[in-house]
């Protein structure tokens, strides 16, 4: 019988492991770069949602919906293969930069929603109080709204960091040499895909599961804080 677990080879496993591990650093670096890009561009979409002029807001929101509802893989291909062919503005980008722009912009449409939910979560009374105290526009945002809007979004933002980490291997399709590409290379060279791909899965699990537990903990902590606020609020009424 050739079936069963007899096809698993520990020798291949230990042979491939150090080679694949070499790609972990750059994979994490790309995750952070994409995430940073998403965090920054996210502000743009949040601002767009608040634009008072519908003639500008609606077309931009249409573009946001388009980016959000189409596959990030196709967007990566567009930036890597098609962007250099675009007249005037087009230029060739390396896989790392392409992935930062592609995945960063794709997930910025989600991050923008997170920011928005944070801002909408600030009670109307806080806006009114800031106005009543004659705060300037800038002071209202920096002293009153943002300090209350940001903390509740931290667990959600943490979740998106983990999601980003799991999306980054998409960049292997445009030649980014992260852990998945190295595993595929090893597989192609030795004609053994089982062990290298299992190693990649284990690496993802080992890194993202503890992070998910951490985010859960943060979530509980912030929920508790919000509950406390709710109690003091009801006492005040």
């Amino acid at each position, binding site marked *: 019988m050739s079936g069963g677990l007899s096809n698993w080879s520990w020798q291949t496993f230990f042979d491939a492991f150090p080679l694949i591990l070499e790609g972990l650093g750059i994979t994490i670096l790309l995750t952070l770069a994409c995430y940073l890009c998403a965090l920054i561009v996210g502000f743009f979409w949040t601002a767009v949602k608040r634009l008072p002029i519908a003639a500008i807001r609606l077309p931009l929101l249409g573009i946001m919906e388009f980016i959000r509802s189409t*596959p990030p893989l*196709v967007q990566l291909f567009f930036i890597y293969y098609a962007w250099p062919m675009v007249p005037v503005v*087009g230029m060739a980008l390396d896989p790392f930069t392409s992935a930062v722009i592609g995945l960063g912009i794709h997930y910025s449409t989600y991050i923008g929603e997170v920011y928005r939910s944070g801002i909408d979560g600030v009670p109307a009374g806080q806006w009114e109080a800031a106005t009543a105290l004659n705060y300037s526009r800038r002071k209202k945002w920096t002293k009153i709204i943002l300090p209350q809007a940001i903390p509740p979004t931290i667990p959600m933002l943490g979740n998106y960091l983990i999601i980003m980490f799991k999306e980054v291997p998409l960049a292997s399709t445009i030649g980014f040499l992260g852990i998945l590409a190295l595993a595929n290379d090893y597989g192609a060279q030795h004609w053994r895909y089982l062990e290298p791909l299992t190693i990649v899965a284990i690496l993802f699990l080992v890194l993202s599961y503890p992070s998910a537990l951490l985010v859960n903990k943060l979530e509980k902590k912030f929920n508790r804080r919000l509950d406390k606020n709710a109690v003091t609020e009801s006492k005040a009424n």
Partner: protein
Amino acid sequence: MIIIDAIADIFPVLLKGVEITVKVLLASIVLGYLMAFIAGFCKLSRNVIIRKVTSFYVEVFRGTSLIVQLFWFYYALPILFGWEIGSSFWAGVFAIALNYGAYMSEIVRTSILSVAEGQYEASTALNMSRFQRMRLIIFPQAVRMMLPEFGNYLILMLKSTSLVSLIGMTDILYYGDILRSSNLDQAPTVYFLVLVFYFILALPFIWLTKKMEAASKKGVASS
């Protein structure tokens, strides 16, 4: 106009891929929701072993990346069990369904848990069996809470079907890649059209998600 000629050339080629994309999507949706409900209920089971096994499934699939799971199902699984060659269709469908099923099982579980305690007590007071209580009282209320998130996952699943082109399925993106490799100058038009194809497929889901959100709010006293 050159660009219109190009679109007229590209459009029918991409159209050939729609069938596979839709097939993979529909199979993934059916299996994915099925997995979500099975795993969601199993996590609420009174049996510790069922709970632990389900937790393991959910954490493994949420903790590893979909593209890794897809490659693993397609390249690694057949080797592990000594099969001849895997079916790319089922590798794709199982990867997407098991991955999103794991995410959605959490929605099923938390929705069932968030049905008000009084509803449980009332149905117990009415002498309902455990099964009757779930079927007639708890589940109908929980499903409503699941709807908005379920709608979002429809769009996520549609987007993820593009991955099956990587294991050789002839979907929309696959034909796009073929066109691009035969004529690199056309790449911007090709990929833009591919994106438009996916967006058109997503439109009914975007609409459905809005409907589901409205349905979940309808007739419920806001607390």
